[in-house]
């Protein structure tokens, strides 16, 4: 039996992952579990994830969400994950409390767009992008638990590979996940 407590008879679990308003640092941490990736590959199949490039989430056991909710598409993706995942996990500071993207919450969104797309020096054709394919921005960035129900939270910016591996091995083995002191941090 390995660290996750699996054996050949145990059915393989499906995991989906995505990044909303995040920097992909939490996904980088998932890659930081290094050789445990092989162990993980023995235990799970990946559904929608940047690792598979699958575009939509199907029925899954575990959904890992990185990033906060900053636009209409984030809301749509988050709700799709909640609908399809038995267990939804907020991974990292942005998903847990809004993180860096939420630091725009003090500013008026219209002024932000003007500052970036109209007021900067050297812009050849200043205009605020309005392509219909661009998702509409929310006036405030929100952590994911303010939009859907979340089952577990893994804080950190990003959580370390060791923290993610501890969390996943607990979860996959059917234990209540718990981070020891040295793995629990918010930065």
């Amino acid at each position, binding site marked *: 039996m390995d660290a996750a407590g699996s054996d050949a008879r145990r059915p393989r679990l499906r995991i989906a992952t995505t990044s909303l308003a995040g920097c992909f640092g939490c996904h980088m941490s998932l890659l930081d579990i290094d050789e445990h990736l092989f162990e993980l590959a023995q235990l799970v199949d990946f559904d929608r994830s940047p690792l598979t490039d699958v575009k939509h989430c199907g029925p899954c056991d575990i959904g890992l969400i990185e990033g906060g909710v900053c636009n209409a598409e984030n809301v749509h993706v988050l709700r799709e994950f909640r609908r399809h995942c038995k267990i939804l996990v907020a991974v990292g500071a942005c998903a847990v409390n809004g993180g860096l993207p939420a630091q725009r919450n003090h500013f008026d969104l219209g002024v932000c767009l003007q500052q970036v797309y109209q007021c900067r020096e050297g812009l050849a054709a200043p205009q605020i992008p309005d392509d219909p394919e661009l998702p509409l921005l929310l006036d405030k960035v929100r952590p994911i638990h303010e939009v859907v129900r979340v089952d577990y939270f893994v804080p950190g910016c990003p959580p370390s590979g060791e923290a993610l591996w501890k969390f996943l091995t607990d979860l996959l083995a059917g234990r209540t996940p718990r981070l020891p002191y040295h793995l629990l*941090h918010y930065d």
Partner: protein
Amino acid sequence: MSGTFLFDGQPVPFTDGQTILQAARAAGHYIAHLCWHPDFPPHGSCKLCIVKVAGRHVSSCAMPAKEGMEVESNTPEINGERRALLQMLFVEGNHFCPSCEKSGNCQLQALAYDLEMLTPRFNHFFPDRPVDASHPEVLLDFNRCIFCELCVRASRDVDGKNVFALTGRGIHKHLVVNAESGRLADTDFSAADLAANICPVGVILKKRVGFAQPIGARKYDAQPIHVVAMQEDK
């Protein structure tokens, strides 16, 4: 006068005039707190130090120890209540730990680690609290203020300058600077004042320091606050 009371089932001696928190701490038992400081009279505002005595919640920083009382502190129920108080503090301000210079040395963060707070749980207020960077030596980031009044008490009672005050009530309560302009630069505040060095969170920060200590070498990186605080007392 002196006596003994039971703290989580352990006998704790006290002398007359000592509070539950003082006596428990002297006996090596840490009680979570944010607004309490050994050099100042109890303030009783943060409520992190709540304990149960005879089935009732009391602030251990303000409650005098009495002979024979039975105090419950480190129980799942009370720690859960402390965690809920921390969660409220986190959503009422803007606590973005990754971009805070105090991270790793912050008592609010350290208590949240100690009590295994994984989520702020409540909806965030995201209040608008502009910073005051007017002073040449010190920056004020009001976003992290938890209204412990330690800076107010230190400035008034030790520094003799009365630089800070709290104003407003309830959710409108906020820290202000006692100057006609409201700016720190227009006071006689100095980075050497006790008030500049007592903030348990990241409101009062010295300029040109930044993230001086690497992750791993900061105050609460290796050991939880209940261990660090008791080591400092020795």
